[in-house]
């Protein structure tokens, strides 16, 4: 994009004509990640999953859908997901000290939030061209014990391309 097009805003004390990358608050030469406000409750939210019962005994591999919502775009959007640790609004969640961020479906160990590497049990969170999904996944012969547990995720679905 051309350098002489659009607007620049520098941080205090810096000349927009000469400011370095860190001294510019905004520069329209560059794109930004955008959350669409008119659909914000779909595109940004906090989902807490409570397991009232255990998932079925898995047949390797098994995916159990926990949450699914149509995002309104006709392409795979860029997503960020934060696995929230400790407590959020009174809920306990993933782990006490090691939460994860997931970018475009990639998190710890690949495309998953792993709960147990030894048990190969994970949350698989991603978007296709229509829906955003939170799934439980295992390629082991059993799931961990889930009944009574809460898991909380904060997610963002941006208008930028995911894949």
């Amino acid at each position, binding site marked *: 994009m051309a350098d002489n097009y659009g*607007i620049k805003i520098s941080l205090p004390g810096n000349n927009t004509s000469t400011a370095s990358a860190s001294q510019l608050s905004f520069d329209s030469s*560059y*794109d930004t990640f955008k959350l669409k406000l008119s659909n*914000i*409750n779909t595109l*940004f939210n906090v989902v807490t999953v409570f397991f009232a019962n255990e998932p079925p005994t898995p047949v390797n591999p098994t995916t159990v859908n926990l949450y699914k919502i149509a995002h309104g775009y006709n392409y795979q959007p860029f997503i960020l997901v934060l696995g929230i640790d400790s407590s959020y609004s009174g809920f306990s969640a993933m782990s006490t000290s090691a939460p994860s961020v997931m970018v475009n479906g990639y998190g710890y160990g690949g495309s998953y939030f792993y709960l147990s590497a030894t048990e190969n049990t994970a949350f698989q969170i991603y978007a296709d061209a229509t829906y955003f999904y939170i799934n439980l996944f295992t390629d082991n012969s059993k799931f961990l014990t889930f009944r009574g547990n809460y898991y909380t995720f*904060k997610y963002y679905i941006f208008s930028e*391309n995911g894949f």
Partner: protein
Amino acid sequence: MAQVNSTSQQNYGIKIAQLGYDARTAADQNLLFSSSWPLLKIAYTDSVSVPANSTYTYAHNFGFPPFHFGPTDDNNSPLTLLQTKVDSTNLYIINGNATAQTARFYLCYNPLNINFQALDNQNYQLYTAQPYDKNYGIKIVKQNKNINSTDLRDFTVHSGTRSLMIEGIVSGILANEPILPGGNFNTVFYQSKLPYPSLYFGFWSPDGITYNFLSGFGQSGPKMARGTAYTIKYTETMWILPKLNTPSQTGCIYVFKDPFIAANPIQVSYSG
């Protein structure tokens, strides 16, 4: 590390208020945009196929290690699955798989080695769907795109949207000593004053030159961690824990003012 201050920012720059609010008096959560909080500046993005056991390289030539998004794995084994890293010249996506992998990356014109702190405030940011008036706010369309487009990808900024706003950047040397929960966290450390679990990203460098994006969940370091004793209000601590027995390590934490607190959080009960 260099430091960019923004202590006098309230009366400087531009603000765009939500429909129905006066930009001169609106609280931060009612602003669509405020130059007090820098945005991530997307310089380049692409979706690439990386052959098996190969490294994809993109030359950005920024002259500093930039913020980036890309596929990431536990940094204990950088050649396992997919790992993204940068230095001052290039971005790399390493594919340790036996098959080709396709991944999208985003490269931002935001340095990892310069600190920043926005003016803190402790406003909650409850958020609900906003009415959109096409005759209100600002839009900046990309070159060769139509200002009347309904595809948000055609705009660099659009007041019908919100972007991630940078609250703080902290980078520095990581201590090379045993780190355990409850032990001596002599590492890169950030204490947020935001009143909610904020979005953050961590980067780890073994040498101060090449930075790895951290998933936040490495088993034995390096990894991101949040304070185990943080409370929902006002104080949250974040660390990057070093990888043991690796000298000259550097870490960087980016913390974002967004997200907002979701106005209508969703509760799902799985009953089988």
